[in-house]
C-alpha cells in the first residue's frame, strides 16, 4: 500500500518540481534587466541601442506621423550621412523603395529600432536560417545576447562597464553588426573585415590568424579586385573569406559546421553528430582542395586540441588540488561580495564551473589559468583552424609558459602555507582584497 502511494506520489512530485523550476525561471526573467539574472541589474541607458527589443525607448523630441519621403527630406538636413548611405543602398532603388518608415515606423514618438524580426518581413529565408542556429547551442550568433547577460560577470560589474560586451553580443538582436547601416550591403558582409570588429583580440584572434594564413594573404593581396557581388559558392572566389567557409552558400548561420565549439571546452570529435559536422567541412574544403588533404587538416586540428587540453587539464588538476587543500588565497569567501559570487562562494575552475567569469575578483593563480585557457589556448586553436602554423607554435609556447607559472605559483602557495604553519604565522590580508576605489564603487553600483 505504502509502496503504491510512493509510486503515485513520485510523478506528482516530479511534475510539481519541474513546474516550480519553470515558474522560478520565468520569475527570474521578470526584473528590470534581461535574462536569468534580470532581477540583479538595470540596464545602462545606452543598452537600448544594442538590445532594442528589450530596452529601446522611442524619442519624444518630435511629434507627428510622417510618410517615408518626408523622413528623408527632413533627415537630409539633420543627419545627411545616413540619408546619403540609404540613397546608395538597394533599399532606395526601384519603383518601390524601402523608406525609413518601413523599418522604423512612421509615428515619430513611437519609432523603433529594427530588430531581426523587422528585417524578416522581407528577408525571411535569411532570418529563418539565423534562428535555426539555436539548435546547435552555444557558441552562436543567435544566442549571443543571452550568453552575455546570463554570464555572472554581467550582473556583477557596473552596467556602464559591461556595455562593451553587448556591442558584439548584439549580433543576436540586430542585423547591422554585419550589414552596416544604412547601406545594408551583402557585398560588405562577404568581406573578411566585416567580422573583425568582434572577432579580434586575445580570446578570438580570428582576424590575425586568418590574415596570417595563406587564404588571408591571398585575400589581402588580391581581394580588392574580386567581384563581391557574387554568391559565396564554389568557383566564385580565389580564396575563402570568413563568410565563404562559415556561411557557405550565404547560409545565415555559422554553427552548421562548428565542430570544436570555439575551442572553449573539450569535445569528442568522433561522435556520430561530429562526424556529420566533419563531413560538412570536408565537403566545403573540397570546393578547392583534395578531400584527402581536407581530412588531414581536420585530423591535425584534432591533434592540436588534444595537446592543448592535455596542458589545460594539468593546470586544472593543480588548481583543483589547491582548492581541496584550501590553499587558494584569497579563497572565494575572502573576496568582496559581488552579487553572483556571494550566491555560492566557490572558486570557479574549469568550463563547467563558470570559468568564463573567472577573470576578476579571483586570486592570481586563477587569473593565470583563465589567461591560459581563454587567451593562449584559444589563440592556438584559432591559428590551427585558420591555417596559421606560426600562431599554433606561439600559442603552445605561451601555454607551456603559463603552465610553468601556475606550477611554480602553486609550489609557492604550498611553501607559504607550510612556513606559516611551522611558525604559527597568520599575516592579516583580509583588508587587502576587499576595499579600494573601484571595489567600493562596484559594491554600490553594480
Amino acid at each position, binding site marked *: 500500500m505504502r509502496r503504491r502511494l510512493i509510486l503515485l506520489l513520485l510523478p506528482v512530485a516530479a511534475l510539481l518540481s519541474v513546474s516550480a523550476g519553470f515558474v522560478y525561471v520565468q520569475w527570474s526573467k521578470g526584473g528590470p534587466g534581461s535574462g536569468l539574472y534580470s532581477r540583479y541589474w538595470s540596464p*545602462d*541607458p*545606452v543598452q*537600448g*541601442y544594442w538590445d532594442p527589443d528589450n530596452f529601446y525607448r522611442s*524619442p519624444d*523630441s518630435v511629434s507627428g506621423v510622417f510618410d517615408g519621403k518626408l523622413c528623408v527630406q527632413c533627415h537630409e538636413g*539633420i*543627419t*545627411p*550621412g*545616413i*540619408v*546619403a*548611405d540609404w540613397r*546608395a543602398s538597394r533599399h532606395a532603388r526601384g519603383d518601390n523603395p524601402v523608406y525609413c518608415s518601413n523599418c522604423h515606423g512612421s509615428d515619430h514618438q513611437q519609432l523603433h529600432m529594427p530588430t531581426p524580426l523587422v528585417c524578416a518581413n522581407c528577408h525571411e529565408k535569411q532570418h529563418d536560417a539565423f534562428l535555426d542556429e539555436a539548435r546547435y547551442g552555444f557558441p552562436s550568433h543567435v544566442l549571443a545576447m543571452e550568453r552575455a547577460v546570463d554570464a555572472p560577470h554581467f550582473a556583477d560589474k*557596473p552596467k*556602464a*562597464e559591461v*556595455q*562593451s*560586451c553587448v*556591442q*558584439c553580443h548584439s549580433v543576436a538582436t540586430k542585423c547591422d553588426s554585419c550589414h*552596416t547601416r544604412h547601406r545594408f550591403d551583402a557585398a*560588405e558582409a562577404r*568581406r573578411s*573585415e*566585416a567580422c*573583425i*570588429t*568582434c572577432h*579580434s*583580440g*586575445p*580570446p578570438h584572434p580570428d*582576424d590575425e590568424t586568418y590574415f596570417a594564413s595563406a587564404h588571408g594573404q591571398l585575400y589581402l593581396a588580391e581581394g*580588392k579586385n574580386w567581384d563581391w557581388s557574387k554568391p559565396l559558392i564554389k568557383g566564385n572566389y580565389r580564396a575563402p573569406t570568413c563568410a565563404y567557409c562559415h556561411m557557405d552558400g550565404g547560409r545565415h548561420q555559422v554553427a552548421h559546421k562548428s565542430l570544436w565549439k570555439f575551442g572553449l571546452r573539450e569535445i569528442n570529435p568522433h561522435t556520430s553528430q561530429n562526424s556529420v559536422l566533419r563531413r560538412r567541412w570536408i565537403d566545403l574544403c573540397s570546393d578547392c582542395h583534395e578531400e584527402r588533404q581536407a581530412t588531414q587538416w581536420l585530423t591535425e586540428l584534432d591533434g592540436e586540441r588534444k595537446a592543448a587540453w592535455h596542458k589545460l587539464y594539468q593546470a586544472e588538476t593543480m588548481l583543483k588540488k589547491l582548492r581541496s587543500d584550501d590553499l587558494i*588565497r584569497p579563497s572565494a569567501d575572502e573576496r568582496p561580495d559581488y552579487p553572483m559570487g556571494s550566491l555560492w562562494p566557490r572558486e570557479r575552475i574549469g568550463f563547467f564551473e563558470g570559468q568564463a567569469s573567472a*577573470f*576578476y*575578483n579571483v*586570486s*592570481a593563480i586563477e*587569473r593565470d589559468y583563465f589567461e591560459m585557457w581563454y587567451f593562449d589556448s584559444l589563440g592556438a586553436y584559432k591559428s590551427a583552424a585558420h591555417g596559421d602554423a606560426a600562431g599554433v607554435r606561439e600559442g603552445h609556447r605561451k601555454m607551456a609558459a603559463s603552465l610553468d607559472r601556475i606550477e611554480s605559483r602553486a609550489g*609557492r602557495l604550498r611553501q*607559504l602555507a607550510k612556513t*606559516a604553519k611551522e*611558525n*604559527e*604565522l597568520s*599575516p592579516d*590580508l583580509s583588508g*587587502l*582584497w576587499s576595499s*579600494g*576605489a*573601484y*571595489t567600493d*564603487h562596484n559594491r554600490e553600483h553594480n
Partner: protein
Amino acid sequence: MQAVSAGRLASLIFLLGMLVMPATPAWAAAPATEGPYTDKECTGCHTERDPELTRQLRSSRHGPESGLGCTSCHGDRHSAAVIKARQNSTCSGCHEGPASHSYATSKHGVISTLELTEQDWRKPLEGGNYRTPGCSYCHLHDGNHGDTMALEHGPELRHWICAGCHSPRYVREQFANAKRQLEIADLKLEEGSALIATISDGKSDAMSELGRSLQHHRKNVLYGVGHQSPDYQWWLGQPALDSDLIRIREAIGRSIFRKAPGEEQ
C-alpha cells in the same frame, strides 16, 4: 564686324580684370604650380590666404614644437595635397599601435578600409560627404587644423560631428557611457596606484611595471570608447585592468608575508 566685336570683348575683359585685380591677393593671380614646396613656402602662401588655419595648426599638438610641417601630412605636391592628408594611412604612419589598431578594427575603420577606393576623398570633411569617418573627418572636421576631438573644444563640437550621421540622442548616450566607462577605468587606476603606494618597495621594478600596465590599459579603454572598439574597451581594457589589480594585490600579499616575523627575507 566680327573682328570689332572680338576687340570689344577683349577690352571689356581687360577692363573687368583691372577692376578685380586690386581686390585680389597675389596668390590668386598666380595659381599654384605642382611643386615641390617646402613647409615655409606652404605657410607663406596659406597664412595670407587663411590666417585662422595657421593659428589652429600652431596651437594644436601638430604645432611647430612637434617638429611637423605642412608637408608631413600633405606631401610636397599641390594636386594630391588634400587627398593625401585626409586619408587614414597618412595618420597611421605616426599614430601606430593601439591608436590606429583600435580604429582599424572598429566598424568605422572597417568600412573606411573596404571603401577606400570608392570614397571621393576630394570632398570636404563635412556631414553627408563620407560614408564613414576616417581619422581626418573627426579630428580635423571641416578642415579645422586643431584637433576637433580634443577636450578643449568642449563636448558640443564632438557631438555635432557625430550627429552628422547619428541621432543626437544616440550620440549623447554614447558619450555619456564613454564617460562612465572612463570613470570606472580611473577608479581601477586609483585603486591600483593607492595599493602600490602602501608598500615600501612600491618603486621596485616589478611594481613600476604593474603601475605602467595600469596606465597602458586605462589608455586602451580611452581608445576603445573614442574609436568605438569593443575589444579595446573590454579585453584590452577593463578586464586587463582587473588583472593588474589582482597581480598588484598578490605581490603586496607576498611582501607582507615576507615581512611577517619568523619568515625569512
